[in-house]
């Protein structure tokens, strides 16, 4: 990812998009581990660093925004104190300076009356204000990358628009790269530069946002695009038959083959590699590749 870029990772429940983000942050739940691969941030492999070194990077160089702001905030600390703690931890500022930075961060995310709201506990704020507080905390140390996992899914649509507009503005100002994990193709179309489509733990397609929406290649992506209601007034939606396979029982070849209208014997036997039928447009499909 380049500085300032917005990369959307899309896919349905169980496709692995949240696990991808947690792995990048070294926050995988108990029982899950990174089996292979590398994550380089400004040249350093996050997966090879000590826990201590990763803690130094989390919240300073790379930050995360979760779907449900209540679970990301400490219920017994004011939001100002939580943001100030993140400032003090990573920038070594004194209490007063850290508090001032917290209030400034809340103002930057256009929290109404930031000095007063800094003294509020999470339960005293509306859902939109809580998510502003979480974004203020993520941005306060000017990270290079933000990972946002369904950051607006729990919010009303007018508040979603405010938050997405806000994040885009801050990205332009600070050059922060954004990994946006979402199931909402409308949100993707509004904010992403580039899109990765995941299915059953794998990348099945990757392209610039306009290229993907104009000419999706993978049958799964095409199915998703056809399934999105676009106000054609009752025209039949192109549904994808069946459901996502359980992660513990993936089929041998292409994981999408059991639901795919193009599937052949080859698809059921061997997993298709990622190829680039067009410059910058990757797809993993035997039947729609070059």
């Amino acid at each position: 990812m380049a500085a300032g870029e917005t990369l959307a990772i899309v896919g349905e429940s169980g496709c692995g998009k949240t696990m991808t983000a947690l792995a990048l942050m070294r926050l995988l739940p108990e029982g899950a581990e990174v089996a292979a691969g590398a994550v380089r941030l400004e040249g350093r492999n996050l997966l090879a660093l000590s826990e201590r070194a990763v803690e130094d990077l989390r919240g300073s160089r790379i930050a995360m925004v979760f779907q449900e702001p209540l679970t990301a905030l400490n219920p017994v600390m004011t939001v100002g104190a939580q943001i100030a703690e993140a400032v003090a931890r990573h920038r070594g500022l004194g209490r007063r300076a850290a508090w001032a930075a917290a209030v400034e961060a809340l103002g930057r995310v256009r929290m109404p009356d930031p000095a007063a709201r800094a003294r509020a506990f999470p339960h005293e704020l509306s859902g939109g204000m809580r998510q502003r507080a979480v974004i203020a905390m993520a941005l306060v140390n000017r990270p290079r990358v933000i990972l946002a996992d369904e950051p607006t899914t729990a919010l009303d649509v007018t508040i979603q628009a405010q938050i997405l507009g806000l994040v885009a503005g801050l990205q332009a100002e600070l050059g922060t790269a954004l990994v946006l994990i979402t199931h909402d193709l409308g949100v993707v179309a509004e904010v992403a530069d580039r899109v990765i489509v995941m299915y059953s733990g794998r990348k099945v397609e990757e392209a610039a946002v306009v290229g993907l929406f104009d000419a999706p290649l993978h049958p799964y992506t095409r199915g998703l695009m056809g399934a999105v209601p676009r106000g054609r007034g009752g025209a039949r939606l192109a549904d994808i038959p069946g459901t996502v396979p359980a992660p513990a029982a993936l089929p041998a070849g292409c994981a999408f083959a059991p639901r795919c209208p193009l599937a052949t014997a080859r698809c059921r036997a061997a997993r298709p590699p990622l190829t680039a039928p067009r410059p910058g447009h990757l797809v993993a499909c035997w039947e729609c590749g070059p």
Partner: protein
Amino acid sequence: MTLPPPLLEVADLIVHFPVRHGLLRRRVGTVRAVDGVSFTLGRGETLALVGESGCGKSTTGLALVGLVRPTAGSARLDGASVAVRGGARRALARRMGIVFQDPFSSLNPRQRIEAILRAPLDIHGVGRPRERGAAVAALMARVGLRPDQGRAFPHQFSGGQRQRVGIARALALRPDLVILDEPVSALDVSVQAQILNLLADLQRDFGLAYLMISHDLGVVEHVAHRVAVMYLGRIVELAGRADLFAAPRHPYSELLLAAAPLPDPRRRRRLAPAEGEVASAAAVPAGCAFHPRCPLATARCREGAPPPLAPRADGRLLACHHR
């Protein structure tokens, strides 16, 4: 064009919840969840109620099926008055089904699917007991479930399959009207499309009317014939689907439609509409409830009675002093 009498006619529905506080549970305030809602719904028609959290759209649906007690108002089904308060609920319940948002919490986890689907037939004494098994099997087939799946428990089903069960249960008593309360919000998009297609088939085959409660404007634009936009307990605009989406006229409808993301990166807009948040239904602003966020608000909007929902020359209903 002469219209047949509406299937459902709701007039001045009001649902207020008392806010109680302290040892003596003194009433300290009122949540005005639904504050004077009127609409009609024709046979085979889909009317969508849209709006953000706390606008009263779900409470409206729950009040119609008797799951919350209305404070005032009336509903007429097929021209016959049905007391929304008190008795006569059971007769109404037979003619109105409801499908809930969350297919995980709306099905009893300890009952088999066939028992869940049979319960309404038993309660209402529909058909002879030994014929009810066949009726359940027919229902399951109609919503795309296999007969052997009747022995399963809800946890063995995916979200989409559970929502099929919820739909089958709503249809068990052959209602004329089904209230759909966010029926696809909890589903992935590919499964959402399956369920929306199923709902369209059932509407066509049975002539069902749907009252569709949704916050998802993409879904609403796809399924609705008419749309009622709600804000803090009131309908602020009611218009045909194409009219509303082509040109919303209430300032809140404009804000809501402008905020909805479009699945088309070539039509990207600047996403940074109005500041401000929806006020609480426990502290509804005086005058027009939308005035604190409205760019057109004047002194008239800030005081007195809220603007009435009145018909306009283009056929839509609008509650705004300035439009």
